[in-house]
């Protein structure tokens, strides 16, 4: 099973991009033979480790918005394979995907393959709907061609390694 974890706040404009993209990916991937489960969360919290560690979960895909650091002329959804390494805690209630994967490993001895899919965002003000940059990035994904998620993730991650981090 592929576990899709869409993360964000749909009332903070582009922060909701991950939720939208996760829904679109789920729809595409479900048209293929694979079993997909989608979870929508406001932020990543430790209890998700137990979901990730369930026997049926083979792949975990975190879908989130990421603040674009500069003016984006060609916004792209970016896929990266997650390398799980040590991570320091934050003061708040937010966990990065890497830490969550570490929880699954240390607590439940499970390490499914994991990926991050990020949508560039520039508008995190209060309100519904996405800004131009996030909207363009999501629109550029050809959902008809991604019924094979494993192939799509690898291909997109390869393309991302050509881009500066």
């Amino acid at each position, binding site marked *: 099973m592929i576990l899709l974890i869409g993360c964000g706040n749909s*009332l903070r404009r582009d922060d909701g991009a991950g939720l939208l993209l996760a829904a679109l990916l789920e729809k595409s991937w479900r048209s293929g033979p694979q079993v997909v489960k989608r979870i929508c969360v406001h*932020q990543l919290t*430790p209890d998700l*480790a137990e979901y990730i560690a369930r026997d049926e979960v083979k792949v975990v895909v975190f879908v989130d918005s990421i603040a674009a650091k500069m003016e984006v002329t060609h916004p792209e959804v970016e896929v990266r394979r997650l390398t799980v390494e*040590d991570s*320091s805690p934050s003061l*708040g*209630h937010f966990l990065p995907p890497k830490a969550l994967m570490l929880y699954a490993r*240390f*607590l439940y001895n499970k390490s499914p393959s994991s990926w991050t899919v990020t949508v560039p965002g520039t508008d995190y003000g209060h309100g519904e709907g996405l800004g131009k940059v996030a909207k363009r990035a999501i629109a550029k994904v050809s959902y008809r061609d991604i019924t094979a998620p494993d192939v799509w993730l690898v291909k997109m991650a390869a393309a991302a390694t050509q881009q500066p981090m």
Partner: protein
Amino acid sequence: MTQIVTIDPVTRIEGHAKIALYLDEGGRVVDARFQVKEFRGFEEFCQGRSFWEMPGITSRICGICPVSHLLASAKAGDAILGVQIPPAATKLRKLINWAQIVQSHALSFFHLSAPDLLLGMEGEPAKRNFIGLLQKHPEIGRNGIRLRQIGQAIIRLLGGKSVHPSWTLPGGVGDPLSPEELSEIKSMLPDGFHIIQLALDLLNDMLSKYEAEIENYGNFPSLFMGLVTPDGGLEHYDGLLRVMDSEGRLVEDKVSPEDYRVIIEEAVEPWSYLKFPYYKPHGPDGLYRVGPLARLNICDFAGTPRADRELRQFRRLSPGGTPVTSSFHYHYARLIEILFGLEKIAETLEDPEITDPHVRSKAFVNQSQGIGVIEAPRGTLFHEYHVDQHGILQKVNLLVATGHNNLAMNKTILQIAQRYLNGSRITEGVLNRIEHGIRVFDPCLSCSTHAVGQMPLHLQVLNFRGGVEVELTRD
């Protein structure tokens, strides 16, 4: 000549918070400011929307305590409708609020604070985190996750989903509790009781190791505020406001929550978007604390057997029987509230009325103003709405727990810095102590500023000309 030591976070959404420490010429800390830079715009955003939408909108402020906003919003909505909700609806709302207390406090204790408590405040930074804790004490990590899951599962069973459930509405709740759901909730409780007892034993065994921290982490006289039942018991959903001073004297009692403005005033400072509420009769220095520590200090009793036993133990921390003043004991208070929450859930599930199908009172707009008050995990939460005759919001004010504790957090940071900071040299240990001083309050910046909720740290030591002398970043 003043030096400024700044701890400044870098987040994906620009702004949020930083900590600035002001040093005098001799390198002594003379002031501390916990500065929140994220704009709190939800009040403005909500104007022009219908009050019916507010539970759904305001619950999206925060991913940790959406239920608190749901309930405060629904209660404000009840007041606008001018209705008394059915008894079963009140009980179900209380049930979901206790579940919220359980999951939120579990996150605070096990995930955010246990690494410091079990691995040492000045332990090696690479290992003093939750991963380090999992490597050394995996059973504690698993217990923390399980306890939070229990709270989340109850919220999901009642509200349909664990994050942003929209089941609570003005006038009551959306659906009654089915016998199957009741059985499922009951089946989880033994695990919860087992884990919380282990956690209480663990913390009590550790307290003697943390005498210096107990003495210096926000240990000062202050007022304490919260809700109590009409007969003075521990309360999280309804009740009356009580304010107690650190000698145990009741400064205010039996104040109707709708009259909160009689005792609370809000100040703003140009250097922070977080509000600075204060106890009105004392003026802008009228510092008070809210949340678990305050609630256990102000109540006369808890009202459940095991929590009352723990409360008696807790009160021995203050030899004269006066309120416990060290903010370090928020940890202990949090665990007692988890125990109380589990006991109240168990007790409420035995009430035959809990599965009554009548869970909603229906009405139209009957009042132009509604105030909803509850005790959220971090403290008293106020939602105040003003509507026109169609229920469209004209004015919204949200007063959240992290705001109430703002003055106390600043004072706590100052106290820790004065005790542990040596000139402008910031070690990882000092940084962590300052962070822990904030963690004891479990502040929720999502709630207080309505931001997204991340808070990594970036620390700067600046000289009086603004030049950076030392810089530390913690992602």
